[in-house]
């Protein structure tokens, strides 16, 4: 498999010697093509990174397609003007409990579905998986009304309802993500041999203990992958936060972009720096936990 798809010479000569050769013209062409594509793909982010380090007055005179005028003050300014401390905190307050609850709830569903063979298992799993695929906008009206009607104590939320509350967002994110995680986890749990559970039954372990002390520890790899993926997804969640929160100071970082736009509109260096700051947590995930992220993403489409 060492030549380019367009190369027909392979058909004539399928000898293994050809395979070992590394620098055929076709191969060089492939590399050139891939380098060009990769560079194009990296460019928008690198462009933002580049301009985030340049000062406004310099680029105002020389234009953005120039070189020079380097500074780091955009980052401190963007952080202050965008009130990033508050918004990052909001993001954390939503993301951490939501990911935790999602994994907890979905692992319970997955456990029951894979441990017992009830007739309704398939329907149950289908109900959870399908929920993840519904367009969120289609649920907006009832959710909006419902959240406005659900009273919560004032110490939970100052408006007295779930609307405009970070906990409301935890709830809706959890509900939406549980389906996907339940599906992925159930595929993984089905590979756990039944004999383990039989042994646990003999030892007198309750179903709850089997889930907590047997299944969950065995599921560390998919749980780690899903946790990585869900942190990224919920951190990136934009729609629900935009429509269910009304006061700007409650917005998590991703939906606060909507307000930042107006503030940074005149100063693209600030806009660049802001973008880099917002991208940073997910980019850290990308560089440090790449394997987890990718396996979480692909586990849903390729079984197991």
């Amino acid at each position, binding site marked *: *498999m060492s030549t380019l*798809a367009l190369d027909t010479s392979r058909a004539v000569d399928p000898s293994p010697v050809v395979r070992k050769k*590394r620098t055929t013209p076709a191969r060089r062409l492939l590399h050139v093509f891939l380098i060009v594509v990769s560079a194009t793909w990296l460019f*928008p*982010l690198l462009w933002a990174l580049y301009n985030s380090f340049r000062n406004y007055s310099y680029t105002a005179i020389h234009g953005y397609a120039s070189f020079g005028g380097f500074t780091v003050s955009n980052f401190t300014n963007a952080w202050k003007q965008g009130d990033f401390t508050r918004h990052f905190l909001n993001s954390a307050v939503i993301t951490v409990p939501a990911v935790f609850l999602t994994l907890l709830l979905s692992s319970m*569903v997955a456990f*029951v579905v894979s441990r017992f063979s009830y007739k309704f298992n398939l329907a149950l799993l289908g109900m959870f998986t399908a929920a993840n695929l519904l367009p969120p906008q289609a649920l907006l009206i009832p959710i*909006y009304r419902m959240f406005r009607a659900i009273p919560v104590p004032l110490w939970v939320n100052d408006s007295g309802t779930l609307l405009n509350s970070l906990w409301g967002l935890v709830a809706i994110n959890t509900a939406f993500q549980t389906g996907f995680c339940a599906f992925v986890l159930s595929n993984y749990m089905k590979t756990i041999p039944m004999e383990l559970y039989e042994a646990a039954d003999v030892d007198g372990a309750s179903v709850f203990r089997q889930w907590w002390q047997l299944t969950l520890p065995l599921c560390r790899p998919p749980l780690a992958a899903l946790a990585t993926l869900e942190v990224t997804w919920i951190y990136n969640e934009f729609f629900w936060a935009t429509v269910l929160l009304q006061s700007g100071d409650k917005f998590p970082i991703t939906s606060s972009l909507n307000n930042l736009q107006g503030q940074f509109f005149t100063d693209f260096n600030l806009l660049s720096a802001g973008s880099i700051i917002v991208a940073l947590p997910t*980019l850290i995930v*990308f560089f440090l936990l790449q394997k987890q992220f990718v396996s979480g993403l692909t586990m849903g489409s390729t079984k197991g």
Partner: protein
Amino acid sequence: MVAIPSIVVIGLIWLPAISSVVLSFTRWNGIGNLSGSDFIGLTNYRNVAANYPPFWPAMTHNLIWLLVMFFIATPAGMFLAVLLDKEIRGSRFYQMALYMPVVLSLALIGFIWQLIFSQQNGLLNAVTGSNIDWFGDQRYNLWAALVATSWRQVGYIMLLYLAGLKAVDHSLREAAAIDGCSESKAFFRVIFPVMRPINIIILVVTFIESLRAFDLVWIINRGRNGLELIATLVTQNVVGEASRIGFGSALATVMLLISSGFIVIYLRVVMKGDR
């Protein structure tokens, strides 16, 4: 143990979904409880189709969105996955470059692409010397948004497809090579057919994501002036405007109807072989 998750998902997803459908047949001013609403049959749908100017443009935009994803971004991602599946030096670097945008939110992607598409300070106009407002002018903004969204979609599809390719039994390729198949022929005749499940999943992902497209256009201009999509219309009818609940629900039901077909296909593929 199933009870709690079920209550959460039924209460926050399925009941609201059903309510959307029910509300779409009623007239409700949004004040007081639901019993104060009147059943008005298909009137809302008739209004949506006939008396709501943004509806058909939005449908068209969603369709264009889908077609671009389906014919350009998704095949591009699949093609790159096939190239990267070969044993080549630096494959990991290429993969990383391509799927880096996948970890970014679409809202942020809209933000970042402003640096390129902006009329005043954007790179594109600086380089080409044109004076087009790429995100503002309704002749261009849908296409600009599609470029930005493809940036992410290509990497996403590449990742999914690459995982699928890696799972294909290696002996199949060897057999094809021994039989004298060219690589492109081996791919289309052997590999592509055995990857049928993942092809369908990618198809469904493409359709559903095109239907749900929202974040990017909302960050650009809240889905107006050439960027109307079904998802933004539903949102505009709910947030702030309390009187159009039935109407907004009719739009929501249209979305639900379209998506449910794909969800059924998806479930049938991923659950095949289960009890």
